[in-house]
């Protein structure tokens, strides 16, 4: 960055008054302080998640088994969608830092170009998250655990994203419309004729022990229980990614406002593009948080 921060000044001069001992402006310092406090909030959420996960004695969902779907495609793609989201956010961070760099050269059209790309990237990320929520909410067929501990992969007629053959370690179960189980064999090996109607519903209700799921009031397709493990898992998922997603959304709005101000030439007249830099700090922070959410929620 060069500038005042690289000048060798003695402590007497730095702290002697009449200047910032840190060689940064008031606005930038306050943005940093805000980011530190916000980082503490996010850390609190992630440590809270870690606390619950460490203290639980029940099975905990595994990221690469839960997040394995892609829009419009069948089959299993563990973590690919989240990886795409991560890539989008990192690249929008790159375009932001390029906008800041263009600002240091007073290159107005460069700032507009890169800032516009940043806004687009951020909007894509928020949209991706909407799809992920939607998918997590209504489920994908998924698995259920019966009372002897066996895990059954349930083909969900309404939403047939996954090919169950990809689900290793699961028994296969066919399901009729309405999610009625149609097991080939029951535990114990007895052949069972196709069960339909009330009998199937009874089987579904009595033979199946759900992992307590995430009942969501607007859950689509009449699924009563989400298959993705304990309730707390879903709570943390919605809260952490929701809190982060709201930050991304605010970031997009802030970047958009700054973009409009740049286009109106306000910063060019002011003589510097520090506002872009401050908005950039916030935007990079959002990316930074996602790096941690990605690791501690999806990977670990």
């Amino acid at each position, binding site marked *: 960055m*060069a500038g005042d921060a690289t000048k060798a000044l003695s402590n007497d001069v730095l702290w002697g008054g009449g200047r910032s001992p*840190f060689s940064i402006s008031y606005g930038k310092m306050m943005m940093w302080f805000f980011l530190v406090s916000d980082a503490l909030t996010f*850390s609190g959420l992630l440590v809270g998640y870690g*606390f619950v996960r460490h203290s639980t004695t029940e099975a905990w969902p595994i990221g690469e088994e839960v997040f394995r779907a892609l829009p419009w495609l069948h089959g299993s793609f563990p973590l690919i969608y989240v*990886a795409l989201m991560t890539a989008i956010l*990192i690249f929008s961070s790159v375009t932001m830092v*390029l906008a800041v760099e263009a600002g240091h050269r007073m290159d107005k059209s460069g700032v507009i170009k890169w800032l516009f790309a940043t806004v687009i990237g951020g909007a894509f990320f928020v949209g991706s998250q909407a799809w992920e929520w939607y998918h997590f909410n209504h489920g994908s067929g998924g698995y259920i655990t019966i009372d002897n501990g066996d895990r059954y992969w349930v083909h969900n007629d309404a939403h047939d994203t996954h090919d169950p053959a990809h689900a290793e370690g699961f028994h296969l179960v066919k399901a009729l419309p309405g999610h009625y189980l149609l097991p080939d064999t029951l535990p114990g090996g007895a052949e069972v004729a196709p069960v339909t109607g009330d009998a199937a519903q009874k089987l579904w209700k009595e033979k199946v022990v759900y992992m307590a799921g995430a009942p969501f009031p607007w859950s689509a397709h009449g699924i009563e229980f989400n298959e993705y493990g304990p309730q707390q898992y879903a709570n943390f998922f919605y809260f952490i990614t929701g809190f982060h997603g709201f930050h991304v959304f605010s970031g997009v709005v802030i970047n958009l406002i700054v973009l409009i101000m740049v286009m109106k030439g306000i910063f060019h007249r002011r003589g510097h593009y520090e506002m872009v830099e401050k908005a950039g700090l916030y935007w990079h922070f959002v990316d930074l948080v996602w790096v941690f959410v990605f690791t501690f929620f999806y990977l670990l």
Partner: protein
Amino acid sequence: MERDDIIEYSLDAHHSEEHGKKVRQRIWLVTLLLAVVTTVEVTLGAYWKTWFDLSAWNTIKWTYVVLTLVKAAYIVMTFMHLGDERRNIRAIILLPYALFILYLLFIGIWESQYVKYLWETYL
């Protein structure tokens, strides 16, 4: 009224076309690094069970933590330009944060293990 008591540090941050080239080069280098690290993480997450024994999970877990910290360091130091700021502001931002977070982590992990022990023993 124009104020003359404010030093505009941002004016000092301006740089020339040649210097900008160097800055951009560094940005793309860091981008490449972040992309590679993320690819490694995702590939490891998706396929580690087919490549390694289940007992390798602990090593993989710590690999993730280290890779994440590497990514975070590059984002903060290069993209957020904290590496280019004065040492005193770097310390003021990073040290208090590190202090709080290490304490929070310690409490979180320590207490969660005790709670797990309670669940297992008395439930």
